[in-house]
């Protein structure tokens, strides 16, 4: 198993990540997720989204999730890339990619990583709208999705 884990201001070359994920020809399936800033949230136009994190802890948590995914499924490669800083509507925020011999493991692992990242990795979003700034609240559906793996 090999993996790439990054937390950075910049985005990444998605085509290069997909090429890397699929490089091992034992890989029959590659699943990836991209999350991006929506134009609207809670009926307000989003002007900007600022992502803060707790650097010492973030990689710790994400590495732990990668280890858990490797233990649960026969995976070949994993990529997690999460941005921080100020982003605009349409900007990508997170890339999670997984390769495996078969699609069931790749789909499960990618979704597991996203569900757990959403509730365990120390990132926080602050939105700027025409009404000013607001920190986003955690969503109970994200808690439910994360708990569904336990």
């Amino acid at each position, binding site marked *: 198993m090999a993996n790439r884990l990054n937390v950075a201001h910049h985005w990444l070359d998605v085509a290069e990540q997909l090429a890397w994920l699929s490089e091992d020809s034992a890989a029959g399936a590659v699943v990836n997720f991209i999350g991006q800033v929506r134009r609207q949230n809670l009926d307000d136009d989003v002007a900007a989204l600022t992502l*803060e994190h707790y650097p010492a*802890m973030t990689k710790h948590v994400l590495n732990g999730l990668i280890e858990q995914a490797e233990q649960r499924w026969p995976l070949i490669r994993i990529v997690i890339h*999460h941005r921080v800083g100020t982003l605009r509507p349409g900007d990508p925020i997170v890339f999670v990619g997984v390769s495996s011999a078969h699609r069931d493991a790749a789909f499960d692992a990618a979704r597991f990583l996203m569900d757990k990242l*959403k509730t365990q*990795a120390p990132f926080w979003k602050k939105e700027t709208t025409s009404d000013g700034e607001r920190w986003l609240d955690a969503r109970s559906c994200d808690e439910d999705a994360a708990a569904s793996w336990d």
Partner: protein
Amino acid sequence: MNVLLFASLREAVGQETLAVDIALPCRVEALKQHIADQHPSIATAQSNQALLVAVNQMIVGNEHQVEEGDEVAFFPPVTGG
């Protein structure tokens, strides 16, 4: 000891780090109560169950024992991804 604050808690308190005068070791619950007594915004977060505590970069429960030299952080529920 120092407690790191993040996101809405950091903004509500107006500081990135809180210097806390408490005897160690102590339970997380006692540390939370100690800080909440001095900072209303921490008390509010605590009563809303919107306060998470990490010790040495791991989220821990109220029973966890904080030792000398631990890195302690308070923050709201996470919202990344």
